[in-house]
């Protein structure tokens, strides 16, 4: 009685074998990776840029703002970080990378640029520069994006540009 399930499993496995073999052949025929849809590279770049900004804000909030700087700096940066997280989530939700494709998503941490400036003013200036660069990068990516992705990128670019005057106000207060 005990051996019965094992035997049944073996029979099922044997029945599945020809299918597996057929599967192997068809996978072999599709050895070249599927083409990457236009927009996937644009999207992957936008995700990498957004991840970078999220890490910068996290580093400043836990570094400068928490250590010696004005405590309300962390409180002011928090809502902007939340908006970048929302950008990142919306971009990631659109990404469907075909298995075996050549597109690689950048890892989250560019270690070289991860040093947090010592003073609150310098940290805010660095965030400001990052926002401007990210906003401009997204504008530059519009031409290569399908219409609905272009709309999302334009909206995120506008949001990032609007963070600049907010950072300027924090910089004056710091």
């Amino acid at each position, binding site marked *: 009685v005990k051996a019965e399930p094992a035997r049944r499993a073996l029979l099922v496995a044997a029945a599945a074998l020809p299918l597996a073999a057929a599967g192997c052949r068809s996978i072999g025929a599709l050895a070249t990776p599927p083409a990457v849809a236009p927009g996937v590279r644009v999207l992957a770049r936008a995700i990498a840029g957004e991840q970078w900004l999220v890490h910068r804000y996290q580093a400043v909030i836990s570094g400068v703002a928490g250590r010696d700087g004005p405590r309300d700096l962390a409180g002011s940066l928090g*809502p902007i970080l939340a908006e970048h997280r929302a950008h990142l989530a919306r971009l990631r939700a659109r990404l469907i990378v075909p298995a075996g494709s050549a597109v690689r998503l950048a890892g989250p941490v560019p270690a070289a640029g991860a040093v947090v400036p010592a003073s609150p003013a310098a940290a805010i200036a660095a965030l400001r520069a990052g926002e401007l660069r990210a906003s401009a990068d997204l504008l530059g990516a519009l031409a290569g994006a399908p219409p609905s992705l272009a709309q999302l990128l334009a909206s995120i670019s*506008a949001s990032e540009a609007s963070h600049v005057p*907010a950072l300027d106000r924090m910089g004056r207060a710091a």
Partner: protein
Amino acid sequence: VTRPGSSLIVALQQVLADEHAAVYAYGVIGARLTGRARARATDDWIAHQRARDSLEATLRALGSRPAAAAVAYQMPGPIRTRREAASAAVAIEDRIAAAYLGLVGAATAALRERAALQVRAAALRAAAWRGSTVAFPGLPGGDS
């Protein structure tokens, strides 16, 4: 010459209609404000006039007749106080951002960037009136 019914012309005319409304609205908003807020309303009023003129020129260049402004427009809400004037400005800028975002979806590469710059300008004006930023200017549910 681009055909009158093409999606690009329809999108441009839609944005133009919203710019006409914005020019009208800032006239009403500015009248309720004083000092720095009034100066800001005047700056934004001029920005919308320039954007309107630019859209009209683009439509003419495409061989299409720009839609004329209406005599009057329904304001987004009552404008009796400074706070209500600022809320009206936010509502107008949100609408303008959405209109240009529509153009980003419809336009050719060159117009796309121009439209995106206008989304940005509207987001900056909206943030100044609102006193805070949003994650997705011009998209439905723009703050989430």
